[in-house]
């Protein structure tokens, strides 16, 4: 299977977008080579602005550009984009509802060797709690490309969570179509439904093959607004839901699904797989996913025991 990091797909899509839409501007915080916005700089240097290692200023500058009718794509590592610049995203972007696209890379444990300081496990929770903000996480390069293009036409603040690691391309580039706010049933099965986001979708698909029954696998690429109808229907027609994410179990996809199901009477139980309210550490992505119980083998084992 072909592999591509969602950040790599972001760079390619952005390079097309700056050429297609003259209102698109790109801002980066000295990480253009890593976030891949350098791809856009190559083709359109006059609309790529390096703002230096100053994420807070970058986000508020992006807000000022949006107030001037630009469509800024602002990138940094997820931990700094959403953590260091949280107040700027809250007060200068979300409160005035300005059209800024925060495309953050290096989210989750699979940053790997850089360790906990660089592994963002709280960003979905932070961004999801902000009024006006919409939250996206593509599962592969095909979906990343589609979402990066789609958010240019979705008015208001958007947060796109991207990864460093090259991941399997699980979607067919010829037939894939992104629909805002709609979850995708990747595999229709019974009894247990695995609801995953980002690269956990590929781990869930692999886990499904290791089980002695066929579970349902759902990809939630739009975490906010989340596909309530699909989640409620899934909770009615399955015996258990297992949410899987490369994020703290507090406030992420699992939390978002639990919020949808909280007032439902006809529903199955929900189990949450994710990082259990702790920091990451250095290691290879594979070693970390194993250690934190988030690879296909651990997902399959957990479901088999239900």
């Amino acid at each position, binding site marked *: 299977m072909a592999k591509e990091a969602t950040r790599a797909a972001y760079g390619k899509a952005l390079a097309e977008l700056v050429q297609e839409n003259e209102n698109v501007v790109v801002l980066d915080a000295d990480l253009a080579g890593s976030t891949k916005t350098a791809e856009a700089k190559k083709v359109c240097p006059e609309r790529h602005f390096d703002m230096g290692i100053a994420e807070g200023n970058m986000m508020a500058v992006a*807000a*000022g550009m949006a107030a001037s009718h630009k469509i800024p794509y602002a990138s940094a590592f997820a931990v700094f984009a959403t953590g260091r610049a949280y107040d*700027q995203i809250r007060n200068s972007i979300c409160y005035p509802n300005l059209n800024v696209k925060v495309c953050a890379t290096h989210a989750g444990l699979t940053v790997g060797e850089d360790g906990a300081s660089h592994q963002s496990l709280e960003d979905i929770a932070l961004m999801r709690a902000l009024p006006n903000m919409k939250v996206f996480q593509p599962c592969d390069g095909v979906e990343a490309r589609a979402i990066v293009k789609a958010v240019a036409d979705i008015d208001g603040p958007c947060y796109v969570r991207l990864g460093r690691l090259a991941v399997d391309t699980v979607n067919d580039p010829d037939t894939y179509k992104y629909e805002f706010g709609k979850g995708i049933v990747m595999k229709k099965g019974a009894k247990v439904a695995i609801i995953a986001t980002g690269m956990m979708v590929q781990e869930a698909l692999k886990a499904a093959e290791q089980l002695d029954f066929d579970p349902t696998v759902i990809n939630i690429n739009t975490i906010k607004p989340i596909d309530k109808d699909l989640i409620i229907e899934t909770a009615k027609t399955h015996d258990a839901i297992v949410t899987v994410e490369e994020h703290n179990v507090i406030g992420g996809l699992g939390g978002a699904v639990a919020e949808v199901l909280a007032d439902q009477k006809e529903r199955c139980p929900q189990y949450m797989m994710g990082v259990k309210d702790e920091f990451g550490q250095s290691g290879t992505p594979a070693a970390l996913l194993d250690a934190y119980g988030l690879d296909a083998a651990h997902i399959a084992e957990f479901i088999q025991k239900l």
Partner: protein
Amino acid sequence: MNVEELKKHANHVRQNAIRAVYSAQSGHPGGSLSSADILTYLYFEVMDINAENVGSIDRDRFVLSKGHITPGYYSVLAEKGFIPQEDITTFRKFGSKLQGHPNMNYIEAVDMSTGSLGQGVSTAVGMAMANKLDGNKHHIFTLLGDGECQEGEVWEAAMAASHYKLDNITFMVDCNHLQIDGEVEKVMNVYPLDKKFEGFGFEVVKANGHDFEAIKNAFDYALSVKRKPAVILWNTVKGKGVSFMEDQAGWHGKAPNEEQFKQAMKDLGGDE
């Protein structure tokens, strides 16, 4: 407009600022009064904003980075006719467009929502960068407090304005030397601001922020600077115009009682 007319407008702005804070029984009179003359001159003599172009970005824009001095800011906008005068007493009340800190989506003439110190100046830099990109010749102005300059983001914004050679933005600092906890120099000294801004590549202008001749000259000079940004350090008096508020940190964010309100209006030659 002659100096007497400007003084009349500025005095009315001060009266309305006090009226707003008294009516809300909350808000920030001190910095509203220290910046009243500067903002009056900016809106009446410098910016090309009017009833026809107010809804567009094809005009000069202003970002109130020290977002808490809404009593003065809204009063200037009311003086220009962008906010109905009678709305001033709805300030900070439930359902009012006159929020405690400015919201650009509620008032057409407000160019940016602000309130978290240090951010407005960055958004102003973003506007100036966008204007450069578009060949939009209009100018961006932003007003900061001297205490606000303790925020690191102010210097990130200054660095960017200088790096991108933004001669289409003017930073202004209301140097009243007081912040909530006391004297700026004692709380956390940010001075000398002239040397700091020079170090960041700015053309620095210093002027008396209560003398309209000096205000005019400072704007004229700042707007003539090319290939680098300019900052005007306004030497001002916090609480200017109200006897018992002048140079008192305690009046940064406090509302007058009835007796104090009457005294303030008397000081400002008002009719209440």
